[in-house]
């Protein structure tokens, strides 16, 4: 949202907060997409810690394809495919080979991160070859405050809201969504009911990877001007994992949380633009993480009672009990 920042830099102070909010929404897109993907994976019972690695791989793929074809849509596709491929490895290890999910996820972060940096080393610093343009929604975009914040975003932002709605609807109101939840709560029960646990898990882990890749492509095409090694995604994948817990595995809450996080993560720029320099940049950067920790701890006792909380079978490999 470079145009927004330069406006602010020109010293229009009151605008700063509006711009910040708009920026938060934009910044929240990769967060929420990655979180939605992780929600799908975790709801099927598979913990995928490899999100950061998948996003890096997705981002570098988006960059390279954008560089070659100048088409943002092909770039997004490439990112989705690359991240999904990595997620498929995770699915294979965890579902078929029943390996330790946590170690597998971490291995993927390191491998994926290394792979992305390896492949992208020759293009570091180069400007990106494509981007997604903002899309004004007529009439609504002229509303004061709300117009700037909500209706002058780009297509991907609007698409993300739609995706959130679709995922939410899918999980709670559809038959395959019921199967998904069953696999995550009690795979033995789902198996006995005729649901293919392996198929559900594979599907949702790979889908989750694809969503993370989509989010990473947005980072590459809108938020960050060039490929910058691991600093490109800057830990968003890890934050997405925390966001899932923060959102109690519910899509709409993940969206809300992503905006809050986006706001907090951009607090640096916002306060600078508003002329508030008293708080050092690094301390500001810490805040989203501290905030999450506080919220996680504060919410912990109530989650159990509210029938909320992690899917009961999360993290455990499923073996059909033959004896």
């Amino acid at each position, binding site marked *: 949202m470079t145009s927004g920042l330069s406006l602010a830099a020109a010293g229009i102070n009151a605008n700063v907060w509006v711009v910040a909010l708009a920026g938060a929404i934009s910044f929240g897109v990769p967060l929420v997409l990655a979180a939605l993907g992780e929600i799908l994976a975790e709801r099927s019972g598979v913990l995928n810690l490899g999100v950061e690695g998948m996003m890096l791989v997705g981002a570098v793929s988006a960059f390279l394809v954008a560089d070659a074809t100048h088409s943002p849509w092909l770039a997004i596709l490439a990112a989705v495919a690359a991240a999904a491929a990595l997620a498929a490895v995770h699915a294979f290890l965890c579902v078929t080979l029943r390996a330790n999910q946590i170690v597998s996820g971490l291995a993927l972060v390191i491998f994926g991160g290394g792979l992305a940096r390896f492949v992208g080393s020759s293009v570091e610093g180069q400007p990106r070859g494509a981007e997604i343009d903002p899309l004004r929604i007529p009439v609504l975009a002229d509303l004061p405050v709300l117009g700037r914040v909500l209706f002058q975003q780009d297509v991907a932002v609007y698409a993300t809201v739609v995706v959130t709605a679709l995922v939410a609807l899918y999980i709670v109101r559809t038959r395959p969504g019921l199967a998904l939840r*069953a696999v995550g709560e009690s795979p*033995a029960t789902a198996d006995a009911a005729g649901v293919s646990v392996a198929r559900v898990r594979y599907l949702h882990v790979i889908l989750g990877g694809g969503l993370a890749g989509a989010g990473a492509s947005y980072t590459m095409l809108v938020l960050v001007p060039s490929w910058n090694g691991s600093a490109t995604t800057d830990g968003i994948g890890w934050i997405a994992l925390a966001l899932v817990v923060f959102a109690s595995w519910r899509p709409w809450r993940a969206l809300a949380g992503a905006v809050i996080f986006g706001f907090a993560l951009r607090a640096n720029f916002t306060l600078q633009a508003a002329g508030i320099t008293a708080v050092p940049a690094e301390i500001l950067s810490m805040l989203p993480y501290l905030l999450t920790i506080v919220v996680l701890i504060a919410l912990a006792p109530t989650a159990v009672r509210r029938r909320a909380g992690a899917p009961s079978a999360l993290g455990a490999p499923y073996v059909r009990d033959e004896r």
Partner: protein
Amino acid sequence: MGATDAPVGVRPDLPGAPPAVSARRIVKRFPGVVANDHVDVDLRRGEVHALLGENGAGKSTLAAVLCGLYVPEEGELLIDGVRTVLHSPRDGLARGIGMVHQHFRLIDRFTVAENVVLGDRTQSLRLRRDRTEDAVAEIAETYGLPLDPGAYVGDLSVGQRQRVEIVKTLYQGARILLLDEPTSVLTPQEADALFATVRTMTAAGRTVVFISHKLGEVLEIADRVTVMRDGRVTGDVDAGATTREELARMMVGRDVDLSSRRAVVPAREPMLRVEGLTLTRGGVTSVDRVDLEVRAGEILGIAGVSGNGQRELADLIAGVETPTAGRITVSGTEVAGKGPRAARAAGLAYVPEDRLGTGLAPALSIVDNMLLTRPRSFLLDRRAARAEAEDIIERFEVKTTGPDAAAGLMSGGNAQKVLIARELDSTDGEHTARVLVAASPTRGLDVGAIETVWGILDGARARGEAILLISEDLEEVLAIADRIVVLYEGRLVHETPAAGASREAIGLAMAGVAP
């Protein structure tokens, strides 16, 4: 998949028609054991057929083969006379065979309707809550199984959950229902309601297979009985044409001494005293002002249907749980709220219900499990524990590859031997149990192991130990206890000496009916 496709009142098979399901020469093997050894069984339409056998006889395995959960190595299944191979429970359901397991396969976080509808491919993509709930309610009413389709299963009682399982199986189109030990978790009243439901189902042309080890029930509800022992069929009779003795002989194959044993020497001073013991958590009182006393040289048996506070009571006395109120005195030492180690130091030993999971850590070796309940110094010394493990393995003929084998590899019976031996004996002379709390010590064991365990308990009683036996198996309590109390909703009711005790009165007390 509808619920009622056969008109009510259909006669059982006409002569000449093939049985609904036939199993021929079924062989099913597991590592180290042949669970089903060339088994034949015929199930006819509209009948209640019992599969009778002791624990480990192979009846659950056979049921699993019949419903498609297991694929047999040899043999074949004929459904309506047609040879069929079932690859999964779904295959079984597609052919109309469904099983209600002993351990329910339900998801607590789902509603009743969601549990029933799970896996149903004929549902539309978009789930309509009202439609699914109506469908569930319809079945429930037809078969006399009152249920609220919108309730969360996690909030339901055990009897209600069983109803959900039955409705689920009916919804999925089962015309042949296999019920695995269904009354083990029910009160006598709930069991009667279940029997009524079973008769309604068979009158409607369904076939119900009743898998059980309880002779009395089988004779009451079944039309025909297939008896199994050690993986083979030892008898196939009409229920009306046989006797308890005949069935018992087919079940067990020899004359086993399961007659009652009582204390020979009168009991002496009280070793365990419990006063006003209460446990309240989250508004629920699971143990309610319990007073009891167990003397040296006696077995006090606490009877009751599972779920009335047995586990909590045992855990409280052993120090694993902290009571909300009350006193526990072991050999004169106050131990309430002081933790398991204090209780043990005072001379209490505890054989919990969950033998391989709580009493023994399954991933640890037998040697390490010996160390589990012994006092330990900072530096670990395994020598005494190893000697003890080897001694127990030899003395009790425990089948295992050695003291370093993981405890989880042992069968239930062997694990129980190790557990009880550990709790009762000690080779270092330092630690001798004077009070033993034994919870469901013979659950799931075959008759041979039951004999051994009862022998051990009897021997301990003769040596002067005070034993608190908490068991959901009334037969067991009647067999070896000297005094009997009933636990109902956390309270002790109806105390009676075991000799000459009235089964009826105990049963009523178990169901909460005051005499």
